[in-house]
């Protein structure tokens, strides 16, 4: 096969080694294993650039999930040297010994290599916590919108920033044991709606959705989620806020 590559003319630095988990569960001949790839590091190289490099120049069969490559869409979470992170926002220069090991994000269905299925779980979670405004009011869209205090809108926005990357789940010991645990992503979603003035749900309503061990009472406050959340959401305080509310319902 002819592989004439057009290396971009940029300064190349040290050689780095990526050790990547390889496995295709749909292919009977495939066995889980690690594969090493050596590439030349370029200035400002992210794991996105590194993996695209490997795909286009070394191994055309490597699967992974990138969409926005800008840390916005939440597609590319994987385990990087033991920590769950967004690959597109991870610079290779962080790793001083030039050795990087990549595994697919646990707790989701594995598709192939570094590719996982997050859509199925996240959509089910959204349905389970009824991740939408509940209101009896019929909005007349030709009329002025309902006024909202600017600070309140900002607070809701703060929690609306979750990108469903799944990193909080991968860093959560409860979730690793309990498949149906909603995790920080699901619990914070309820907090988001609980503080939204458009939503008329009461604490009792939320209790119906999260008042059990798969919900708010499953959290053991181990903080793994907040430490790793790439959007720096205030996960612990908001989970605690919901827990206080739910305890009162009991």
């Amino acid at each position: 096969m002819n592989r004439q590559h057009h290396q971009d003319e940029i300064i190349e630095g040290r050689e780095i080694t990526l050790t990547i988990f390889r496995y295709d569960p749909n292919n009977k001949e495939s066995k889980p294993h690690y594969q090493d790839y050596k590439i030349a590091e370029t200035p400002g190289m992210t794991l996105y650039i590194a993996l695209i490099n490997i795909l286009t120049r070394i191994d055309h069969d490597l699967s992974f999930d990138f969409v926005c490559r800008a840390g916005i869409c939440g597609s590319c979470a994987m385990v990087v040297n033991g920590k769950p992170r967004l690959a597109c926002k991870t610079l290779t220069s962080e790793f001083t010994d030039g050795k990087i090991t990549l595994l697919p994000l646990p707790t989701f269905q594995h598709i192939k290599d570094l590719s996982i299925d997050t859509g199925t779980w996240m959509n089910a979670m959204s349905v389970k916590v009824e991740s939408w405004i509940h209101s009896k009011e019929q909005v007349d869209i030709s009329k002025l919108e309902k006024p909202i205090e600017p600070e309140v809108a900002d607070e809701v926005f703060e929690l609306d920033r979750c990108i469903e990357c799944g990193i909080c789940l991968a860093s959560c010991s409860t979730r690793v044991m309990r498949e149906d645990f909603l995790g920080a992503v699901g619990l914070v979603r309820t907090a988001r709606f609980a503080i939204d003035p458009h939503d008329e749900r009461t604490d009792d309503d939320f209790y119906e959705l999260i008042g059990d061990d798969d919900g708010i009472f499953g959290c053991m406050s181990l903080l793994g989620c907040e430490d790793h959340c790439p959007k720096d959401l205030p996960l612990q305080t908001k989970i605690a806020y919901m827990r206080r509310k739910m305890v009162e319902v009991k």
Partner: protein
Amino acid sequence: MKIVYTDALIVGGGLAGLRTAIATKDKGLETIVLSMVPVKRSHSAAAQGGMQASLGNTVMSQGDNEDVHFADTVKGSDWGCDQDVARMFVNTAPKAIRELAGWGVPWSRIGRGDREVIINSKKETITESNESHGLINSRDFGGTKKWRTCYTSDATGHTMLYAVANEALKRGVVIHDKKEAISIIHEDGKCWGVVVRDLKNGDLIAYVARGTMMATGGYGRIYKQSTNAIICKGIGVAIALETGIAQLGNMEAVQFHPTPIVPSGILLTEGCRGDGGILRDKDGYRFMPDYEPEKKELASRDVVSRRMIEHIRAGKGVDSPYGEHLWLDISILGREHIEKNLRDVQDISKTFNGIDPADEGKKGWMPVLPMQHYSMGGIRTNAKGESPTMKGLFCAGEAACWDLHGFNRLGGNSVSEAVVSGMIVGEYFANYCKETHLATHTLTIKRFLQEQSDYLDEILAYDGEYNIFDIKDEMRNIMQEDVGIFRNGEGLKEAVEVLETLLKRTKQISVGSKIRGNNPELNESYRVPKMIKLALCAAKGALERTESRGAHYREDYTKRDDANWLKRTITSWKNPEDTLPTVSYEEIDIKGMELAPAFRGYGRKGSLIENPLSGERAKEIEEIKKKLKGCDRFELQDALMPYKLPLNFKEKNERVGVGYE
């Protein structure tokens, strides 16, 4: 062979597709949305700066209304848009944003009293009224007369997409992600669904429906440098082209955004300049006022991008290992503003470039260069969003040439269009699905499935000398060089030739892994020929269009030529064996326009070849206006260019201070 039946099939789960799904589901239609990625990861999520809707809430947008939004949009399009569609759009946009507010999008709200803003790089104090307290805020954007762009910090697309996706889930819309449509099923000129490849395991599935909506987004990734997500390959648009029946409109109309960051190409929103940020050259000099004294950094995107390249060509670019660039300076807005309203911008700049844009002085300047950003072209539809040549095929959002944007779209008009067209076209589409009975044969469906299956086997059996990734790189390079911001006949001719060669070469490849399952090289091997076809439509359209209009700029034909070119480019792919598209044109009706063609008010003056009909129409408009003196603006509008909207979308929009006037 797997066949899935539904009433309404929507390909694409971005803002346009999901809002359409809500329209069909609300009509009681069984609805399936297909997407290459989990829908909340669609490219709509990346929209930063905001959504245009003429609410007129803040003091800086007083006096705004549908008419002002309409005029801005038509001028922005360089008179290339369909004015009917623009009218439909501007009247529905305020309704769309209010619907979204009700669905919980946490729009940034106005606080009463004084607030400091930066205007023309000077601090000024504005005072918001009591009445507007708590209403939706808006910021300034390029090419707009008023501050009309509503936002949630700089994560607007994300919050909109989540709200719309959750509303779709609430209604029980069925979402199948990691599914890629690779061909359109049709019989006797009618569309009956798509053949899909399951990206998890490679299975082929036919999705069959009464009506099919393509909401597959843009095709920016045919360029080397683009702000678009890496899934924006235009496959949905390409499979419509490949039917030989559906047609594409204005594929050469490609937008370049002034301020993606160098070298990654990640976008820094227009909100940076809207909020008061400025562009500087290698000497730290603010150069835009010299070129555009009136709108400065906030002229329309096509104009600012060209001025930047002009300035670099004049030797004022900053040298870097990645080539020349200019600087974007938002440090003048102050840390507090940046950390609240331009937070993702700061995060992007810090993470990918190690620059904190809130740092004062040169330290905080971010390297920027214009890059591909938006596809004005797409599947040609009528004002109802249906292909005029293939029944049952609808299209909305960036994938469509509905034609709201003509040759240049305004920032903030696109997420707005995605939702608004989801409402309007969604309604027409739902009606079509209600009225239509499935009338295709299992044999037809099986034939389309078999064709794709054979095609994939054929690819795996190729035994050529080339590699698909190299071919893709070459396509992206030639598009970047010759079909970019500045174009000329010679370069375009070469581009068409090279692309044609590349298209033929896509059959002279070989694929390493021979499995039909999850196989990234196989994915590229069927996608790249489709991408090259789109590239050819863009290049050929650009070559034949011997004028400059909006984002299409010809160095050898620098004038906008209304006498010869007030028309839409239509490309089609007549036979599967063809290696070039067939180009034809659709006249734009000047006599039916509400706003007769004229100078836009920014960009180069005196570079317009007038069409005699423009003057005639302008006179007619004047006369109608004289005759209707004393009538309100709605009656006048109706006399100039009557238009229709479904549901209650034609109702007047209420505004603070003026009611329904």
